[in-house]
């Protein structure tokens, strides 16, 4: 076994977030401490992790509503205009027989952001209520959130390519709708939220009891 029966915090060590150098914490507090090897600011845990993550999760949840209700693209073809939301795009693909593409868009644009917000809320609650339930699985959930979040940008890129290509004057053109801005904000904010959550908080509850 490579594991030692102690955490860095129990031995008064700080683990650099960037280069993972172990630094001895000075006795007189450690505000504005720098990693001697790489210069990153040193903290025992990410600063204000819970408050920051809660704030960002709340903001993203609010923005998630207009992102799904408002139109993502506005298509004009031969005098008629049609506004499409994310879901109506998914339904269009199902009807036109490309269910694989429908699944990709649904997973990336609807399912992943929702799942990510849900996981972050569960993790935040679990830390605040000091759950001791399955810390390893909760850490896995965190790693999953960190990994899949960026894929939600897919729809933004599809819109970018569509507005570039479909520009045939009066015949047909596509413009980005207001939902695109809200949706991009949701993706960016949830990415920052996942980054500001400190998974070590999940494990801290276990040590305080023992």
């Amino acid at each position, binding site marked *: *076994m*490579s*594991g*030692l029966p102690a*955490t*860095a*915090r129990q031995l008064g*060590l700080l*683990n650099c*977030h*960037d*280069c*993972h*150098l*172990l630094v001895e914490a000075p006795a007189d507090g450690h505000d504005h401490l720098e990693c*001697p*090897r*790489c*210069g*990153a600011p040193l903290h025992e845990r990410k600063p204000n992790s819970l408050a920051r993550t809660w704030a960002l999760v709340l903001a993203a949840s609010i923005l998630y509503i207009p992102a799904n209700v408002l139109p993502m693209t506005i298509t004009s073809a031969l005098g008629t205009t049609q506004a499409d939301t994310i879901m109506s795009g998914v339904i269009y*693909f199902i009807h036109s027989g*490309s269910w694989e*593409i429908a699944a*990709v868009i649904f997973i990336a644009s609807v399912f992943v952001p929702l799942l990510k917000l849900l996981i972050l809320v569960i993790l935040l609650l679990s830390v605040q209520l000091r759950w001791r339930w399955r*810390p*390893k699985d909760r*850490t896995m959930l*965190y*790693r999953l959130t960190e990994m899949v979040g*960026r*894929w939600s*940008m*897919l*729809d*933004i*890129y*599809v819109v*970018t*390519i*569509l*507005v*570039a*290509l*479909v*520009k*045939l004057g009066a*015949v*047909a053109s596509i*413009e*980005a709708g207001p939902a*695109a*801005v809200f949706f*991009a904000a949701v993706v*960016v904010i949830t*990415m920052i939220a996942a*980054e500001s959550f400190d*998974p*070590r908080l*999940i*494990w801290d509850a276990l040590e305080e009891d023992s």
Partner: protein
Amino acid sequence: MPVVACHDCDLLNRLPDEAAATLLCARCGAVLQKHKPDSIERSLALTLAALILFIVANSFPFLAMKSGGFVQETKLLTGIVELWRQELYGLASLVLITCVLVPLLQMSCLLYILAPLKYDRPVPHAIRAFRLLRHIAPWGMLEIFMLGILVALVKLGKMATIVPGISVFAFGLLVLVMAAAVTVLDPPLLWARLDRRP
């Protein structure tokens, strides 16, 4: 005794004696150390290839759409320009940052760090550049843009003929080469070699 703390659960783990071993955290299973052979040379070679592909992807025609008598040709950056023209400045900037600026910065950082390291020349602030590289990594989204191209192709394929240009193929290769350049890196080795302490 060489020891590392787990970045996910804070448990201290003893480093294995043989350098080739992969070290997983004993408590939460996070990957703490993984030996990558010839990481500096391999990553440097792949970064140079990525730079060339990046230039190709930005210089040649990207996608063209033929519908009736109309032909609409685009470059890689056309979409960003079009979003800007539609006054969606934030959105245009976001796409520009995630698909052009961050990948370019990633390549520049890699080149700046690895080329002098290969020939044992010291460069100022190399460890800062590596920190920057690690922080911007999640914001480089070339592979997601590639998936976006495929979805857009299927979406438009029913109403028009889409002609992929050289740029699309260069971009596809760039995604693979870029991912490889980052994957072959050995961060613990680089942190140790770039140590700013005298």
